[in-house]
């Protein structure tokens, strides 16, 4: 039990670390084709310690975690578990050792019940009734309310995460790996999660906590390992660092603060939603109820909300993917557009960026220049003449976007699917921003994008508005919303609260509104 590790060449002096060494990963290397995703990475995890793994998208965090969880084989390196060198050939073997994982993109089976989902992860031989009882007990013990017989498809994201955690806890793990656990939670849900994590750590469980939210890491983590370009660049005690210094270590250079500029006084209303309603289209869709909102030239209005509260439905109604029942429900410029299709709305000066970049925002199998044509074929760029495509012009525009928005690609004009998530997002947003639209509606502008690229995108959104455009941002990321929004509205179960100036709001108040719990919210958002 006292295999103590003090010689880790890659980092400087680290403060006193508690707990016995549970897992020691030494010199892990993983290569995908020409890319070295993990380059001699070493990591030491101790019992009772919440250990942060920090890094940008593509820094190699996920690869490392998959190796620890047995989902990937390393090309080189050793894993030492409680003093024994082990090979973890499959997730089942990882679980047998006592390693549990809570995934970033939930690995749940939507068509199955909570209990069935959990049963799948546990060794066979347990009766269903006994299992349901154990689920109830663990969820009571840790304050994670769950109904074992509910079908996952009907549950909210926060509840789904609880299932993952309870599933993990029932395996009685010694190490829990959590991949970006708070990215989908309200601040209140996140607080509850932190309490659970701290309790687990006190009970002697090791936790590997992957995140790029630095204030969270500073708040709950005892130790941090920072990765960049597949290598460990630093280990530190996050409580002794500032958010700025951690960000610098992650990105490798300082992340600039956003320049907010000044909101022009009372610009014209460029986008107006009036009594916008729509019925739910299916059992898993949300009805939109009587939404009123004005977005003026020069301002950024953000809509906050937990996923699945009507954001995608609202986006579809505003963009014209779905038509409203009356033309007056959506006004772009000064023209009623509620019954107009998406191309008409684009011609009127509006631009739209949907949430899902691959498949919705871009066709995976088409080249970037062709994807460019798909949204800009009739917006006055001269890309189509007499029904013929002007590919050279599309190519020139694609080059311009690539340069202005720092879209990195391995060769010229690749297929959309060849780009990494962050780069594609830069392209999809750049494609619309490049038009200098009068109205921009964007859903989740920086979802899954690393800090550097996110800062670039946010700055561009602010700059666009300051140049006289009306910008409507739908986001689940409160940090982002408070960084860029002039006014904030909250969507909850298809209803939108009044848009309130950002200075007058606190995160807590927005959090409560997101959960639909605010009593004194004015306007359309009622206390449900």
């Amino acid at each position: 039990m006292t295999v103590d590790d003090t010689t880790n060449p890659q980092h400087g002096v680290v403060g006193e670390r508690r707990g016995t060494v549970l897992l020691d990963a030494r010199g892990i290397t993983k290569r995908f084709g020409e890319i070295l995703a993990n380059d001699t990475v070493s990591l030491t995890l101790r019992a009772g310690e919440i250990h942060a793994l920090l890094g940008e998208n593509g820094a190699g965090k996920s690869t490392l975690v998959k190796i620890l969880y047995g989902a990937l084989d390393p090309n080189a390196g050793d894993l030492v578990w409680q003093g024994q060198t082990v090979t973890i050939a499959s997730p089942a073997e990882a679980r047998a050792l006592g390693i549990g994982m809570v995934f970033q993109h939930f690995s749940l089976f939507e068509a199955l019940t909570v209990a069935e989902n959990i049963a799948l992860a546990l060794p066979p031989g347990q009766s269903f009734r006994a299992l349901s009882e154990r689920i109830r007990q663990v969820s009571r013990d840790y304050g994670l309310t769950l109904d074992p017989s509910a079908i996952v498809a009907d549950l909210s994201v926060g509840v789904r995460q609880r299932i993952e955690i309870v599933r993990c806890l029932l395996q009685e793990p010694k190490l829990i790996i959590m991949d970006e656990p708070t990215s989908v939670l309200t601040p209140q849900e996140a607080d509850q999660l932190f309490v659970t994590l701290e309790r687990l750590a006190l009970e002697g469980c090791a936790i590997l906590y992957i995140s790029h939210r630095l204030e969270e890491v500073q708040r709950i983590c005892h130790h941090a390992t920072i990765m960049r370009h597949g290598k460990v660049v630093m280990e530190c005690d996050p409580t002794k660092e500032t958010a700025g210094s951690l960000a610098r270590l992650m990105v490798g250079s300082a992340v600039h603060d956003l320049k907010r500029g000044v909101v022009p006084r009372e610009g014209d209303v460029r986008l107006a939603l009036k009594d916008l309603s729509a019925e739910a289209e299916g059992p898993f869709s949300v009805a939109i109820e009587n939404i009123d909102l004005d977005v003026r030239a020069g301002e950024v209005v953000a809509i906050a909300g937990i996923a699945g509260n009507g954001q995608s439905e609202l986006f579809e109604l505003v963009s014209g993917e779905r038509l409203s029942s009356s033309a007056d429900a959506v006004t772009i410029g000064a023209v009623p557009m509620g019954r107009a299709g998406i191309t008409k709305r684009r011609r009127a000066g509006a631009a739209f960026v949907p949430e899902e970049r691959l498949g919705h925002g871009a066709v995976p199998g088409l080249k970037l220049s062709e994807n460019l044509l798909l949204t800009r074929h009739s917006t006055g760029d001269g890309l189509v003449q007499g029904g013929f495509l002007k590919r050279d012009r599309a190519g020139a525009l694609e080059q311009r976007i690539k340069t202005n928005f720092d879209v990195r690609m391995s060769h010229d004009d690749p297929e959309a699917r060849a780009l990494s998530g962050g780069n594609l997002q830069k392209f999809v947003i750049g494609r619309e921003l490049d038009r200098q639209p009068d109205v921009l509606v964007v859903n989740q502008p920086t979802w899954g994008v690393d800090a550097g690229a996110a800062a670039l995108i946010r700055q561009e959104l602010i700059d666009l508005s300051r140049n006289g455009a009306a910008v409507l941002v739908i986001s689940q990321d409160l940090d982002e919303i408070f960084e860029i929004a002039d006014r904030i509205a909250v969507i909850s179960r298809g209803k939108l609260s009044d848009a309130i100036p950002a200075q007058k709001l606190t995160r807590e108040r927005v959090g409560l509104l997101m959960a639909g719990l605010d009593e004194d919210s004015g306007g359309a958002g009622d206390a449900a």
Partner: protein
Amino acid sequence: MGAFESILLTVITAATPLLLAAIGELVVERSGVLNLGVEGMMIVGAVMGFAGAQATGSPYLGAVFALLSGMGMALLFGFLTLHLVANQVATGLALTLLGLGLSGMIGEAFVGQPGIRLTGIEIPVLSDLPLVGRLLFGQDVLVYLSLALVAGVSYVLFRTRAGLIIRAVGDNHASAHALGVSVLKVRYLAVLFGGACAGLAGGYLSLVYTPQWVEGMTAGRGWIALALVVFATWRPLRVLAGAYLFGAVGILQFHAQAHGVAIPSQFMSALPYVATIAVLVIISRNRILTRVNTPACLGRPFVPDR
């Protein structure tokens, strides 16, 4: 034997091959694989069942031949789609074409030969009961087997861990893989089970339904079985209901035509399809249940990343 009783007996005979093929395909699709080659596996089962019975003199061994040949075809399908990750739709269609051609070649020598019939069982006293005797206690083994399969598949899918794993693989293969389930192994087994059922269904045609070999004798029943699975929203008891309904309407329209009902015969021939679709659509109105029962990964290839 009364006319009513004989009609019921023919309904059972018409429904059983559909039921056998559909219940097998149901398991295949629940695991997330779309095998459109049911027709091909059936027809190879039919000719091999006939050949097996001729060679051994036993219709039971013929049925075993049919079953094994269906599995052989399924193994080929599994190798192409699971191992080599070929497109499932194209491979399934190819399997049907291959089966039709292969069976014609194998069966050339058997055309016009009298077959050996797999006869119904005889239980003293019970089989001789008036009215219900032949209906309940005088059927052939495959009829009872098909009904047992429905009960068995239903039980396994919804009451056992093995069934939970099959459903999980069909719902989200990436997550199942992450949990350590061998997705390809589960799918191979499901595909083989489906092949065995389809082969047996074909054998039923050449050993019971019309005990002889006629080229193309499956006459689209494999496609009907496929449609039944979808319209039954991947639920075993509904497949049972659909197969018997299809069989019943088919036989009834046949009798109606024989009695000279003045409706165009084309319309009468279309009736089983219309009736089956209408009834199954009506009972699948509950969209939430339908969505929960639809395998989300149906037809999507899986390549484990390592």
